[in-house]
């Protein structure tokens, strides 16, 4: 397990610091702020899903919002039809699987069909728009699955929160639940990207044709990582649905699809920690500025993206990590350890 040794660098220090902060945060703030942060965390999974498939696997997707919707809607329909609160964890797990399966099926047809790059972006964009448009017209009473009406543009309301046994997770309990899920997913992804599979994903991102000639069944790996990304996006959708108790087409629509792309790109798509931190920063800004009009956050985000493309194409947070490494850590050594495939 030598490879799992953790390296002291800016990214890891900030990553650990962030989680420590998140764990003690509820001690100092109001329940309203805890609720807000739970929402931010639920959206981090969506950015992580994109960082994984785009930053590591080289698959540019506008479809993460659609998988987010699949997860949220599935969880709502499944749990509300059953009507039993103890079934909610099963709904969560099944929803993640369904999101992964849907992404896997779409990925299978795309990647085995030889579709790549910008065309994957276009196809996934179409899927997101189709899903949003379809769900938005399900307002009539004929649009029901079991006893649950899909609700058109207003979506589904009254989605149950997750219950462990008879204990419903709400407020600070829900916050800690979602935080622990994030920690587990984050560590899992960090280990994943330095694993064999992770290296294969990076090879495919860098040069697909060459990777094939090294003996890798590239379409299979692409399908698998796309499915994994779909499962993560689906998890995000489920947590979002349980957080607010509602799921609407716009949460899984076009604007929602572009947001994680911009967040991953601006923070640093090839770095999970950077993508995560930038997502927190954006949502915090968004909430803070919402008093004077929510659009300000989007304007700032747009400006940030332009600056990133012009000056730091690898991402703002990643560049700050590098600056930190140069200032506080021996960078040469850091590069070496990274190259050895350690926990970077």
């Amino acid at each position, binding site marked *: 397990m030598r490879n799992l040794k953790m390296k002291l660098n800016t990214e890891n220090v900030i990553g650990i610091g962030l989680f420590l902060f998140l764990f003690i945060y509820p001690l100092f703030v109001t329940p309203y702020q805890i609720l807000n942060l739970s929402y931010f965390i639920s959206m981090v999974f969506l950015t992580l899903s994109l960082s994984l498939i785009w930053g590591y696997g080289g698959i540019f997707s506008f479809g993460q919002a659609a998988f987010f919707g699949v997860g949220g809607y599935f969880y709502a329909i499944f749990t509300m039809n059953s009507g039993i609160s103890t079934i909610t964890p099963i709904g969560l797990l099944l929803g993640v699987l369904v999101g992964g399966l849907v992404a896997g099926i779409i990925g299978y047809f795309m990647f085995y069909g030889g579709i790549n790059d910008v065309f994957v972006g276009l196809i996934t964009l179409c899927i997101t728009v189709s899903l949003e448009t379809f769900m938005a017209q399900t307002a009539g009473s004929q649009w029901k699955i079991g006893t649950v009406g899909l609700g058109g543009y207003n979506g589904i309301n009254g989605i149950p929160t997750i219950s462990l046994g008879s204990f419903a997770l709400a407020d600070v309990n829900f916050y800690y639940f979602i935080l622990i899920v994030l920690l587990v997913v984050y560590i899992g992804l960090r280990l994943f990207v330095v694993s064999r599979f992770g290296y294969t994903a990076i090879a495919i991102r860098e040069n697909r044709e060459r990777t094939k000639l090294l003996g890798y069944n590239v379409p299979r790996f692409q399908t698998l990582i796309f499915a994994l990304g779909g499962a993560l996006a689906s998890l995000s959708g489920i947590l979002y649905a349980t957080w607010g108790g509602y799921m609407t087409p716009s949460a899984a629509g076009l604007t929602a699809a572009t947001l994680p792309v911009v967040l991953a790109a601006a923070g640093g798509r090839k770095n999970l920690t950077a993508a995560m931190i930038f997502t927190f920063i954006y949502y915090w800004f968004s909430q803070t500025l919402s008093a004077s009009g929510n659009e300000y956050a989007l304007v700032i985000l747009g400006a940030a993206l332009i600056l990133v493309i012009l000056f730091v194409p690898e991402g703002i947070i990643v560049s700050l990590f590098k600056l930190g490494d140069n200032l506080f850590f021996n960078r040469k050594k850091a590069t070496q350890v990274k190259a050895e*495939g350690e926990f970077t």
Partner: protein
Amino acid sequence: MSKGLVEKSDAILTLKGVGKHFGGLKAVDNIDLSIKKGELHCLIGPNGAGKSTIFKMIMGVYEPTVGEVFYNGKNITKMKNWDRANLGLSIKMQVPGVFGELSVYDNMRISAQKHMKSSERDEEIDNLLRFLDIIHLKYEIVNNLSHGQQQWLEIGMSLASKPELLLLDEPAAGMGPTETEFTAELVQKLNREGVTILFIDHDMDFVRKIAEKVTVLHLGKKFAEGTIEEIEANQDVVDIYLGNS
């Protein structure tokens, strides 16, 4: 048709009537080629003779328009390129096919992890890097390496897949005399260790030094074949290629 048919010979690679047509252009036209196990075989010919196209058909990058490719007697004409790589075929391309943004180690690991256990992987990578004399560059980003070093790294990546047949497309291209010398020794050493090698090169000094057998291609067809002495004594070959090389 003849898929799965086993051809009995000591040839590791056989091309039977293989052709690749791009529209009306026959880049490769009805080529028969046989590479014996353990051979160090060179393809030469003017630009556009079809050499690299043949390599791409052997590796499955292109599917032949006509003809069949056999590897160890097995018909691999329609086999996926990753399956070919896993059979023991490996290639170093003309334009270095290294991952430029990654480190030398990462490049080697991507190839090695497919073909060896993780317990032996890192040690084997070090051995190969020492063999190629680029161990001091292990953690360097590949884009910072010289052209020659990138070529050696790519040979190293091929070797990490433990190939039986190694295809080298211009292994000494763009190298100075010392680097070319080192590459020649490297190729010979590998061949002595049992790797069958088929290579393309324009540098006749390099070819003369190492090739046991030479096939000359011209306008997509096989023009001549024999030892280097026979080829250099062939007036037709001198006229079409060697005379102006």
